[in-house]
């Protein structure tokens, strides 16, 4: 029984979707995890969980929203279980040619890492994905009020860090 359904899926179109949108998904995942490999794991897990719904969901053009929802809910649930809210931040991921000053990235990644997972997901959805509060609530499966309180707390925490003072000081 196992595995035979693989050949029944529209592999080519799914591959095209991943090829075109995989990098964008990875960038959101990176902001959630702060780590290249964990971001890749998160994207692949979300894609793997979503693939069985490709036929049903892709027909109306909403597959990317579906994958993103799976990715964010997986992130919140997965990290709650596996990492229990703790991530070491002493060793930051190494990348060549930083697009922003290293110090800034260091501060932001460290500040994001201190946020509870729900707050971090809300911040990335609201301020990186540019979703509205309603859309963010739909992705996370919570109320708009929860999104408001989560983002307010996250912003308060980030204000206490050096991140949001960066501009004033520079």
């Amino acid at each position, binding site marked *: 029984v196992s*595995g035979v359904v693989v050949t029944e899926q529209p592999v080519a179109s799914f591959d095209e979707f991943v090829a075109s949108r995989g*990098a*964008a998904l990875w960038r959101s995942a990176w902001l959630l995890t702060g780590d290249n490999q964990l971001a890749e794991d998160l994207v*692949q897990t979300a894609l*793997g969980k979503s*693939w069985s719904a490709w036929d049903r969901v892709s027909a109306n053009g909403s597959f990317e929203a579906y994958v993103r929802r799976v990715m964010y809910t997986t992130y919140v649930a997965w990290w709650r279980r596996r990492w229990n809210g703790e991530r070491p931040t002493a060793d930051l991921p190494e990348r060549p040619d930083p*697009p922003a000053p290293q110090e800034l990235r260091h501060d932001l990644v460290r500040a994001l890492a201190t946020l509870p997972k729900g707050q971090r997901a809300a911040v990335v959805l609201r301020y990186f994905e540019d979703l509205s509060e309603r859309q963010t609530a739909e992705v996370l499966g919570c109320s708009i009020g929860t999104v408001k309180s989560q983002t307010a707390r996250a912003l308060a925490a*980030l*204000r206490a860090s050096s*991140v949001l003072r960066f501009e004033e000081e520079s």
Partner: protein
Amino acid sequence: MSDEKHLRDLLSEVVPEAPPNPSRAAAARAYAAARRRRRIAIGATTAAVVTALALPFALADRGGEQAESPTTGPEDPAWRWVSYRDVEVKAPAAWNFDYEALRPDCIDRRTPRHDPWAKDVPRAPYVMVGVPNRPVLLIGCLHDPAPGDPDPAFGDLPFTLWQPFVKLDEARPDLGYPDRNDGQWQYRDWRLTRATIDQVQITVLASPEDPSLGGSVLDSVRRVETTSLGCEPGSPVQAQRFAKPSGSPVPAADQVASVAVCEYSRRQGHAGLEGSRRISGEAARDLVKAINAAPAGGGPDDPDNCVDDRYGDSAIALRFFANPEQTSTPLAEAYVYYDWCFGNGIIDAHGKRHLTKANCAPLFAAPPISLWSGQRRIVAFCGPLGAR
């Protein structure tokens, strides 16, 4: 510029470009296929488990009849009953009680056998029941998942240190830990089976030498009103405040053939029978003598260390039997309090006695009842700490 606008800009600036990964879609499909295979496998085994469990429960519930007494009927000497709360299973009689490693996640994967964190890893097949007062180190050791790692359901212990085990513990679905989910998994011919009966979770890790162990253990599940060692699933001793037994006081030593030592968790929302042992013969009579010879009044207490409205996390009920095989209608009961800064001592229907080395140390002499933490003077009488 507002904070929110500023944060938007910063997030866009710092996020790196995604590294190229042409195999991303293929990896996702492989993940989906593996996930589907596992779901099918779990579905099949779950049906089998439910069938296996339904039979003994149906028998136990039949017309108000009690479950068959473990002391009646032929028993296979290769197996023994192991109890936790009101659930009993049969486990291999040759396996000793032991405790799983405290921090398996901290053991170095490269040299697991020689890692200091591996010192408390059982080195032989074992049986484990809930440990109500074991301290937990509030640290965590993260290690990168590697290709070919076992499913998280197997926990963090490195494969080379695995030993088969049977474990009964409190079901905690609220924790959401992947290594506490029910189901069945396989890794290199080792089989892990986990099933929950109300508040009790049963876990069996079977080695390739005995792949049917999980089925055998789950086939034996039964619910009892009194365990095979003579303990009750619940006791007044598990209440938040101190209790006094009714009935007779501790009898004279020559009337006692056996003592059931029943340890209870007293934690609110998690109270009930944990570990239990049976002390028989001369050792039982020595224990009774030591209890009767102890000074009247409680202690030792250290009230300077007290916190209001706390009474300790665990306590022991002693049940004194005239017959070595008897499991119900004891001659008397006594409650042993040792886990807090006041109220310590042994209480029977007549009064309270002081804890001494002679009347307390035997209670913690062997798993599955161990003293993991305590006031200094309690440890001096009842220790050693964390006895294996």
